[in-house]
Structures are given as C-alpha cells and as structure tokens.
C-alpha cells in the first residue's frame, strides 16, 4: 500500500525568504531557464492550455506538486499543451513525474502519452509504479530549441496524472521524488524560483481557506473595515459548497442569516449542477466585498515568532510563486488545521474514547464512540451523478475498479458515498482516499451499465475534489464535546448556535456490508438549541490564531453537530468580528473573549 510522506515546508520558507526579486515560473518553462545543471523543468501546473485536464492541488503536501489530472469520467480528455525553450538543440532525455494510481492485473486506468513537437514519446506513462516517481520517457532530438511544444495525451479518461516533465542532457540526472522537501527545493532551483524574491503583503487579517467558514470570516471582518486577505487553494471559493464538490449548505444561519445568504447554496440534491449558479452568487459577493482574494493560492508554511504567527507563505498554484502574507491575526479555515499544525499548536485527530469526555451512547456502542480512542473519523465524499440521454452508449470496462465496487450498482452518489478507514488519514492519505472513491464510482456505474435499463445513461459529473467531513482539529481554550449539545449548555461567550442533530457517520462495512465506501448516519437529537463558545474558536497555543470550520476546538462527537456549513459560516462570522475587535482594542482573541465578549456578541447579533 502506498504510504504517505509529509512535506513540512516551514523549513523551506527561510531559504526562499532570502531570494532576490526575480520571479515567474509559468513563463519560466517558456524561457527555457535551466535552473538545475543541464535540465529544464516543466511543471504540469504551468501548462499554457490545460485542455480537458484538471489542475489538482489537493495533495501538494503529500506528493509535492500540483498535478494535471485526466478526469474524463471514462472519455479521454482533450490534450493539455504548452511550449518551452531548451538551451540547445540535439538529443535530450525526458523524464515524466507520474504514477500508476491503480496498479494490478489489468491495464492501468491512468495511461497517457507525452508528445514533443507533435511526436509521441515511446513509453506509455501512468502504467507502472504506484508511487510518484520520474518515469524515463526516452529521448527526443530537438532541431529548434527556441520553441518546443509539449502535449499530454490522455488515453483513458480515467484520471491519469502528470506532475512535471524534465528535459536533460544527462543520462541519469539526480531527480528527487520521495523526499518531498528535497523535491520542493529542487523544483525551485530548477525553475529559478530560488533566485527570486518573495512578494510580501500585509493585512489586518489573513484568512487561510476559502470554504464557507473562511468566506464568512473574511466578509465579516471586511464589513468592520479591516483589510483582509482570503486565500483558497482552489480556483473557486466555497469549499465543500463549491461547484467542484457540490454539497448543499445545511445547518441554521443563526444570527448570520444576512451574510450567509450571500454565499450559501439552495438545498439542492447533493452533486447537483445548481451548485454552479450558487457559485456565481458567491464569487460575485466576494468580488464586490473589498476582500482581497487569492484564489489558487496554497498555504505552504508559516513563520512563528514566540507564540504568534508572524506570516504565512503561500504558493500560487499555477506558477509556484510564493507570497508572504503578514498580519497580526490569522484565521485557520483550512479544514485540516494546517496553521495550527505548522505552528506547533496542540491538535487532535480521530475519535476520543467514550470515557474521555463521557460521550458514550450505549445504544450504538463503538459505532458512536469507541472504548479505546482510535484513528477513525468521518470520511471524505466524492459526489457524482449521471444523466439519461436519447441513445445507448457504452462505458469502458473497469476491471481495476471491481475490487472496490464489487457487484455494487449505482447511477449517482449522494452523501453516503463516503470513505474512511482506521489506517488511513484523511489528510496524509487524501489522494488514496479520493482514488478509492473514484474506483467505487466507476465500478458501480460500470455494473449499473450492464443492465439494459441503463443503456442510455452517461456519467454527467464526478467530483475529483474530495469533500472532507473531519480531519485535524486545533485545540482552543475550550474543547466542545457531546454534553455541550445534549445538555443544551449555555455559555456567556456563546457566538454560534445550532439545533441540528448530532450526526455521526460510520462505514456500513462496520456492520457487515460488503462495500467499504458507503456510510450511514447515527442521529442523536439534542432536544433544542445548543451554542458554541468563542473559546472554541481560537488556539490555546498560538495567541493570534483563530479557527473557523471543522478544525475548531472539539472532540470527534463534538464536531458531529456543528460541522455543517452554515454553522461553520457562523464560526467564520464570529472570528471575523473578533478580528475587528482585536484591532480596535489591540487585543488578542483570548482577551477579546475575556474582556470584549459582550461587544463581540453584539456585533454578531446577540443583543
């Protein structure tokens, strides 16, 4: 099984911080800069024309790149193209960083070819090696080094992937791949980024993560006159509510109805294309808000000074450019608690034992809360659907999906299409989890297509961005647990409210089902309105870090109620207003909670 590795880019920040100001990676490959000996690196993320390939930024921290994904749902996608320069003509060796995402006794699903100047290289890529690696592409003879055309030719439509290409005069250049820090450094050198200065930007508040919680935080803070930066690793905002994931927003808006109505979604069926107009509404709201938006920016590390975060560095996904964001306050709305994790704050992951916080529910036993703490969490979803056409169509054979899908048949997937496993981490194994769900989707749809009644069905949309429910949580001054909901506990610093059930998911395989990619929900009614205290929304260890969204301070069960997007949006509003009070009073989030909580509650709407 493919194991993950961790990329801690924090150490790399100091290196790039001393660079001179000369910066542009997208154009880099075109200019033919040779940053590493005799080689030229062309990162897939910098391709001029992506064709039908998708730029996947989800797994940068696990595999060291933003790769192109041939997500054609079984139909080969249009070629991705770019041009580059080489320093000289003659014979060049070519390597392609890729992987076979589903190895086994079948033809690999993610096969593709690479063409240079219109001529495909001999090897088929994506057909061997489960780990990300540099596959030897043979050699090409270049007569005109001033413009080299490169194309990625998808052969299957089943999620072939390419991170980068490297042209070298050397027979066996030293190409890092497994050591992701070394890989990151090498890429920066190979593209010349290491010689370029980092742009520095300063704001009153920097929000990392552009899901509903992050958007709400940015909008609330901006409404109070703060200068705000909002960073999102995807090209669109909304996170799980975005048109890339398509979960509808649920929960109550609390006191934030007016604001949340500008970024939420209708209650469409999960996976519906109604997410697209909702996306447009959200983008319009943000564009008109005055918040400075940084779509396609991935936070990669931070600078910690004492117990504070001094700055956060982020790469632009398409160019690799690094920008340093300075601010007195940061909001971690990444969902995965990256800022808290990088900053060394205490974090939690997995399910607490039932005794740690008295969260047992005998009716459901271990499915609800385990006797011994474990690494299970609620899983990631890949939503999907199909459409009926007016003519029969074939779907390619998917023997590689059968070990996951078994005989399961389906023509659409809602929230139940969820995967987690005790030995898989929702952050570190995110690519494997997403791919497992893709196998489930394609295999189940292939099974369904065998029935004549589905002859005219075609896959309409399959998410390639996983919709996570739970991962790392940052510990605050208060840890929210089950009893806070079941006892309807009221807090003097309550800033968020909710009424929905405590909604814990488990994999139905735990109760004997054959498939491991479907989940079931256990609902426990709290019996009324429950509240979240502001103390859950800032780190106890990093004095200028607040949290909004699923990485707030809670236990596993504590997350199960307030984890939905409108509730997370309320958290965002609370920390956005809190940021304004921090600036107004020269306070930290903690002191706002201690001394200005009434003012904060007033701003939110608790008169």
């Amino acid at each position, binding site marked *: 099984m493919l194991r993950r590795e961790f990329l801690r880019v924090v150490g790399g920040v100091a290196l790039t911080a001393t660079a001179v100001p000369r910066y542009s990676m997208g154009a880099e490959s075109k200019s033919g800069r040779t940053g590493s000996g005799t080689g030229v690196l062309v990162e897939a993320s910098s391709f001029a024309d992506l064709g039908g390939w998708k730029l996947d930024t989800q797994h940068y921290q696990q595999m060291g790149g933003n790769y192109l994904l041939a997500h054609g749902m079984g139909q080969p996608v249009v070629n991705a193209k770019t041009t580059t320069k080489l320093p000289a003509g003659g014979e060049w060796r070519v390597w392609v960083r890729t992987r076979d995402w589903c190895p086994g006794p079948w033809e690999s699903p993610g096969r593709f070819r690479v063409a240079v100047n219109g001529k495909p290289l001999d090897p088929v890529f994506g057909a061997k090696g489960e780990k990300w690696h540099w596959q030897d592409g043979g050699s090409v003879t270049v007569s005109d080094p001033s413009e080299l055309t490169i194309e990625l030719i998808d052969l299957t439509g089943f999620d072939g992937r390419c991170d980068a290409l490297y042209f070298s005069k050397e027979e066996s250049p030293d190409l890092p791949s497994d050591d992701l820090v070394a890989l990151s450094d090498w890429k920066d050198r190979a593209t010349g980024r290491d010689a370029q200065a980092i742009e520095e930007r300063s704001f009153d508040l920097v929000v990392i993560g552009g899901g509903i919680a992050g958007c709400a935080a940015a909008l609330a803070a901006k409404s109070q006159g703060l200068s705000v930066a909002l960073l999102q690793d995807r090209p669109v905002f909304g996170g799980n509510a975005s048109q890339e994931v398509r979960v509808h927003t649920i929960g109550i808006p609390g006191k934030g109805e007016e604001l949340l109505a500008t970024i939420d979604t209708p209650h469409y069926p999960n996976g519906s294309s109604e997410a697209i107009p909702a996306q447009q509404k959200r983008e319009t709201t943000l564009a008109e808000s005055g918040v400075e938006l940084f779509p396609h920016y991935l936070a990669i590390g931070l600078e910690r000074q004492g117990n504070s975060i001094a700055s956060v560095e982020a790469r632009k996904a398409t160019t690799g450019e690094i920008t340093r964001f300075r601010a007195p306050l940061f909001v971690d709305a990444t969902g995965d608690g990256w800022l808290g994790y990088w900053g060394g704050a205490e974090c939690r992951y997995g399910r607490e034992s039932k005794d740690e916080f008295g969260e047992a529910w005998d009716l459901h036993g271990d499915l609800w809360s385990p006797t011994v703490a474990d690494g299970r969490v609620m899983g990631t979803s890949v939503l999907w659907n199909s459409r*009926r056409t*007016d*003519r*029969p169509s074939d779907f390619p054979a998917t023997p590689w999906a059968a070990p996951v899908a078994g*005989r399961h048949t389906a023509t659409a997937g809602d929230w139940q299409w969820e995967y987690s496993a005790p030995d898989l981490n929702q952050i570190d194994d995110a690519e494997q989890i997403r791919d497992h769900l893709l196998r489930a989707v394609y295999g189940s749809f292939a099974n369904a297509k*065998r*029935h*004549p*009644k589905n*002859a*005219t069905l075609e896959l309409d949309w399959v998410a390639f961005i996983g919709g996570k429910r739970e991962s790392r949580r940052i510990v605050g001054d208060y840890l929210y647990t089950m009893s806070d909901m079941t006892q309807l506990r009221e807090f003097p610093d309550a800033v968020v409210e909710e009424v929905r059930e405590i909604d814990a998911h488990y994999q139905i395989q735990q109760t004997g089902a054959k498939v491991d990619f479907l989940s079931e929900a256990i609902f426990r009614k709290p019996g009324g309105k429950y509240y979240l205290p502001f103390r859950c929304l800032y780190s106890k260890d990093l004095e200028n870090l607040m949290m909004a969204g699923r990485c707030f301070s809670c236990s596993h069960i504590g997350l199960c109620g307030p984890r939905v997007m409108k509730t997370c949006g309320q958290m965002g509003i609370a920390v956005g207003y809190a940021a304004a009070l921090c600036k107004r009073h020269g306070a930290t989030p903690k002191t706002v909670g201690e001394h200005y909580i009434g003012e904060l509650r007033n701003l939110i709407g608790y008169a």
Partner: protein
Amino acid sequence: MRHVVNFGLLFASAAMAVSGAMLFLQPFSIVVARVHILVAIATVVLIGLHLASRLPYFRARAGKRRPWGLPADIVGALVAVAVLIVVAARGWRPAELIVAQGYEARHRAQIVRTDPLSGFEWGGDASLTVARKPSGDADLRVSLLLKLKQGSAPPPTIAVWAETTTGSMIETLYLDPRVAYSDNPDWHGERVERAAVLPIWRGRYSLVSGVLPGGDTDAVSGATPTHSFTLDDYLVSTKNGAIVLCVEVNAPGDPNDAFPDPRLGQPSLLYTAYIETDSEQPYTLLELTGRGSGTGDGAVFYDLEKITSAKRLIDLLLAKVTLAAD
C-alpha cells in the same frame, strides 16, 4: 334417430373438413383448433352410432367366408388403409407432397416453439408463470411471474426470452400462441405483422434464427461464433454467469396522442432484469427499459415520456433463479 345420425354426420364431417383444411392451410388458431377437435369428437361419435346401426350388415358380410378366408372386398379395404398408413408414416409420395402444401410445412421458419424444458401457465388472477427447467450439467431453474393489472382487456401479447449480457438472444422462453405461428398473425381481429406487435423480440429472433420477418433468410448477420443457444450453459450455479431476462408486452388498440394508430396504438414495452446466476438473492424485479419501434429490427427506443396507459399494463414482473433441487 337414423336421420339425426345421418344429417349430424353430414354437418359434423363438413365442419371437420373445413376446420381441418383451415388448420392445414392457415396459421394455427386456437379457435379453429377447438372447433376442429370438438366436431371431430362429434363426428367420431356419430360414425360410431352409424356403424352400430350397420352391425347386422357387418356380421352378414363377415360371415360369408370363402374357403381361403375373408371376402376380397374386406381384405382390399384393409390393405388400402394399411398402405395409406405406411405411406403417411414413411413420408412417401404423395403423402409428402400433400403435407408440403400444409401451412406448417410452408411456414416452418415463422413458427416458434419454445424449448420443451420451458413451460407456462396462466393463473386465474391474470398472472402468467413461465419456467425453464435445467438439463444436463445445469442446475438452476429460472422462473418468471408476470401479473397483469386486473381488468387489462384484451390481454396484451407477451414474449419472454433470455439474452446474453451483450444482447444476443439465448432462448425464447414464452411466446404468446396467438403470434407464435405466423409473421402475419390475426391479432385481435386484424392481420398485423408480428414484427409490429413484438418488434424487439422479433428483431432478436431474426439475429439468432436468421429468419427475417418477411420469411427470408439472413445469411449475413447473426450471433457471434462463441454464442451459446442453450440457456443450460448459463444455468450453472458454480459459474459466475449472468443473463438478461427480457419481457416484451404489447396491448392492442391502445392509441394515444403520440401513437394514434388505432390498431397498434402505443408500441410494445420492454422490461428487463440483469440476473447474476450466482447471486445470493434469488429474486430480481424486471424494470421498464424501453420501447419497440414497430420496425422489427430489434432496436430499443428509450423515450418513454409519451407512453401512457401501456405503462400501466403490468402489476408485477418478478424473476427467480433457484437451484432446481430446492
């Protein structure tokens, strides 16, 4: 009494001759067959009565023995009948030529008879049960229960068959007798092409039989060389086999706005079930899949929005696959 017998014999034998000629020359009709059988029984009874009235004659004639045995006329009649039987049994001319003029002989290709291993039964609650027993190494029994909505009158025409997962017919398990003997049957009082009544079944049947709806033989298309035409090959519990069970249903005279033809009305509907023969679940519901076109080319059309009452003909379509020993 004698006159009753004589005239009864006249009329009954005439009816028997006419109905026999119809059976001989025309597609099988259950109505004609019923008439023929009943008048034949009546004729036999009347002949019996007639012969009984002639017992003294038979006794007298048989009593006039010659030293070398029975009279020549009796022996001659006996030999003539025996020769007739032998000629018919052996298929010698002119028996062969006469039989060749019969409908069955002239339209053999159009006549569809299901495998003797298949059987069917109509229940009193408008339900049809079709079952296929295994033979040889096969050990699975396939059965199908079709329940019509009560009040579906006149009853629709139905075909049931099994296909491979790639859409090649394996066996016809049931074909409505009203359309089993002709490609141009009398369908509720009118001559209608069978390919218009059950176009999907007819198209599939053409592919495996090579007999086109017009009666011509198609020597070009057909099933793949590896195709097996016996369901037994698929009814083995130890194989990971799969078949598609198909039911085509068409009711006469059900026109609507989209399908106004007063005879054919709405097209036939196809119901299917994908059945994995080693599945732990023995029951599978057949689901509405598409409609026929009336062209008989086997094409399935999937636009069902304009189908109205035809969708309501069927109450239940349930397939069951079990070990035959169960």
